[in-house]
């Protein structure tokens, strides 16, 4: 299918500022879905609130635009009731790791089959440029006119520690790499995290004198390097990109299914006449 068949064209041109990296993430995601040949009706995208979260309005998948920080909670509900569907959850850095940080670590811990995409522009774009848990120290924000003092999370290390079974990082400059990683993440069974460094020229770029979108992309090119590359070996201060973890681990919905089956079998053995098994079966289908 053409890329345009996966979007709701009536909402274009989209609302993001000129050169906003979130648009490139949408672009890369559409290519990944197209190249995997996924049926639109098999995909559910849930999102929270933020410039990033507006992405769910533009895709022609099933979509739920929910509450700030809660996209993963909604996705968990959808996935448990309809495990055959693919769940894509794009989130801003504030959405995913400030207000939504608790949902994030617990979704990772459960290893539920959801693809989480962190659209990391290191700032709250939508509400006017407040700093986020991913800004890092020494950055300017509307809430830090004299620069931030907070350390940032490392999304990759946090995700690994929390139990995600696929963890990767790329940038909006490295769009081919993004498509490739997103394809792998979507195909992975378990909780996959793809952090994509994005640019907010309007707030982060302007406040931190990083220039326009083009200059911010040049910065991503300069300050990151592929895992295993000579560049990274020579300069460990560069931000590593690539796939950090890709392991097989028990997936939450499958484990839940096993427990349900065991519970039904044992109940049936204990109380065969009440025919409780059938009832439980129905509840399970509707759950």
């Amino acid at each position, binding site marked *: 299918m053409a890329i345009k068949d996966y979007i709701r064209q009536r909402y274009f041109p989209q609302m993001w500022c000129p050169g906003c990296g979130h648009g490139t993430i949408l672009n890369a995601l*559409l*290519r990944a879905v197209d*190249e995997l040949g996924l049926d639109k009706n098999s995909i559910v995208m849930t999102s929270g609130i933020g410039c990033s979260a507006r992405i769910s309005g533009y895709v022609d998948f099933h979509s739920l635009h929910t509450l700030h920080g809660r996209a993963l909670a909604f996705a968990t509900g959808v996935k448990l009731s309809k495990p055959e569907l693919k769940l894509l959850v794009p989130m801003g850095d504030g959405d995913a790791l400030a207000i939504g940080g608790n949902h994030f670590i617990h979704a990772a811990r459960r290893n539920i089959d959801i693809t989480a995409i962190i659209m990391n522009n290191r700032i709250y774009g939508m509400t006017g440029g407040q700093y986020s848990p991913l800004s890092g120290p020494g950055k300017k924000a509307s809430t830090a006119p004299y620069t931030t003092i907070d350390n940032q999370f490392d999304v990759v290390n946090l995700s690994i520690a929390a139990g995600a079974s696929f963890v990767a990082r790329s940038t*909006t400059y490295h*769009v*081919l790499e993004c498509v490739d990683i997103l394809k792998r993440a979507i195909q992975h069974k378990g909780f996959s995290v793809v952090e994509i460094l994005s640019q907010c020229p309007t707030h982060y770029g302007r406040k931190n004198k990083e220039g326009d*979108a083009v200059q911010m992309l040049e910065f991503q090119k300069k300050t990151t390097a592929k895992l295993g590359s000579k560049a990274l070996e020579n300069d460990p201060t560069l931000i590593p990109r690539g796939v950090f973890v890709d392991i097989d681990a028990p997936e939450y919905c499958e484990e839940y299914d096993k427990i349900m089956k065991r519970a039904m079998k044992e109940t049936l053995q204990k109380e065969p006449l009440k025919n409780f098994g059938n009832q439980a079966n129905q509840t399970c289908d509707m759950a």
Partner: protein
Amino acid sequence: MARLKLKEHLINRDWCKGCNICVHFCPKHVLELDSEEKVVAVRPEDCICCRLCELRCPDLAIEVITEQSDHDATSTSEDAVNTSEQDD
């Protein structure tokens, strides 16, 4: 792999926001912004069909149509990998 041959750059002027990303990163300097800050292919004969402009555009406003494969057919970002100059 057969070398892709350019048919045209399909530009959606209503969607293009003139961010300059495609212009700046085109390896062959094929693109420019016009007086209305919309992208135009000024040197289409130099285009190597790497598709990086199409893939990076935040607004889905530019498409590279090639002879062998127009937009609905087989061209993928993998074709772009094969011809691109994207570095580490």
